[in-house]
């Protein structure tokens, strides 16, 4: 039986509901630049007014590049039933480019430029039996789906 309690792998990084997932970022109201994760200060040297507010980044976005990792990462990364998986970088309309795991793509047909959206998946069960979730990128249009 699957546990129904889900917690994020890191607090304050993303939020999700049954039908949508969003990254928690910042927008600078001085210059309009978006950041992910939430930024401590506006990093734009041409911005004279660092005024950050929390915003949600929801996509869809465009896949800039990706790779399949064939070897298991060091122990700080926890994943049950580990097998080679893909990581990609996605550009969102807000101008922020975010890395994350890919899921739900047909193998060997992933392409740079593909439209992707956000989802969450469990990485592992913690000691309390809760599903530890991370954000992932999945196909936006049904044609790319596995």
């Amino acid at each position, binding site marked *: 039986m699957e546990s129904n309690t889900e917690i994020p792998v890191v607090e304050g990084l993303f939020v999700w509901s049954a039908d949508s997932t969003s990254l928690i970022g910042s927008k600078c109201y001085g210059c309009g630049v978006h950041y992910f994760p939430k930024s401590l200060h506006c990093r734009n040297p041409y911005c004279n007014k660092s005024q950050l507010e929390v915003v949600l980044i929801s996509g869809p976005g465009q896949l800039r590049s990706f*790779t399949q990792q064939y070897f298991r*990462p060091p122990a*700080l*990364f926890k994943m049950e039933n580990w097998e080679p998986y893909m990581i990609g970088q996605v550009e969102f309309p807000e101008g*922020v*480019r975010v*890395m994350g795991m890919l899921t739900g793509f047909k193998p060997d047909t992933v392409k740079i430029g593909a439209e992707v959206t956000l989802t969450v998946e469990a990485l592992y069960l913690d000691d309390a039996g809760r599903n530890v979730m991370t954000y992932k990128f999945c196909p936006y249009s049904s044609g790319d789906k596995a």
Partner: protein
Amino acid sequence: MRPVYILGVAAHPWGKFPDKPQLQLAIETTSQALKDAGIGWKNLQGIVAASSRFEGGLGWGLHANELLQNSCETGIAAVNVGGGCAAGGIAIHTAANMIASGQCDIVAAVGAERMPKGFIPRPPGAQDDITDTDYLRWVTMGATNPAYWAMEAKRRTYEVGTSAETYAKAVTLMRQNGSANPLARYRKQTTVEEVLASPMVSDPLHLHQICAVSDGAATLILGTEEQVRRCGVMPLRLASSGVATGSFGDSSLRIPTVSTVKSPDQQSVNHTTEVVSAVNHALNMAGVGLEDINVLELADNTAWHILAWPELFGFFEPGQTDWMLDRGELGLNGKLPINPSGGFLSFGEATTAQGVLQVCEAAWQLRGQASGRQVPNAKVAMTAVLGLGANGASILLTR
């Protein structure tokens, strides 16, 4: 500002030395560099150590003070600098400025490292916190260093069409150069077929297209013009040094971040800006143009770096390095000899020592001492190194 010269250089062979503490690597190599300069520990007036957190006491890696307390307690100035793989370059930059400013006449810059095995993990001691991108990249997606470079490599193929064979060919060139370098860890030449038959780590990068992690150490002794005369060494100028960090809007997949911001100004050079800016600082300060460079030692963490970096620095147009490699123009007798040392792909990466090793090789090339891998009549050599967390450094040597 006083001109700065290279008095002595030395590097320990790269490899795995589980029975030799980091401190011993540093002491041996520094003793050898001092001998190369014809002086002793007691002649040093300052020492700058490139530090990382992978090994070393007191929590901040190799430190010059500990080095002195275990070698020669003269009471001289000890400075410790960080910057990941760029720390070696930053240490040299700092040492050079201690001489240029008139504070010291002879200063050593040292890097020594023993690395953990396998993928480079998160160094110990940081907070598990949303503000620590190194923490985020591991727990949210397990992004290894090769994954970042692999995505750059795949993007390059998308943009300029670099083939799997060209990425393999870059490795064969490095290993050919490295085969003549007694300090290199991998001294066997290789073929495109062998490279492509090595296990896929993070596509398109195979194991042999990614630098290994090694132990190693290197030391540079810098001094004034007067010290060059006293030591009786070849007058080799450290013409300039540049240190920089990443710029806003840089599109590179920068380890260990999980995101970047698209440049609002698409016209500017906006990739690996920490290294590009360091290179430009060094060139401007020395009044040297790219066309004057005879030897380029760059940090080839992967085959992608060999192809991408010369274009980022402005040596070639986008995609042109592939063509230059094919024509043999990056070899010892080519238009732009890259990494006659054999590079990281022949040495493996001993983080903080790497930036110092590059300058040692530059010195051997300009002295004409790079037997078996000598670039004919090399007069100007440039190094470029990237460090974890948006650090870059570049050193220019002339004779």
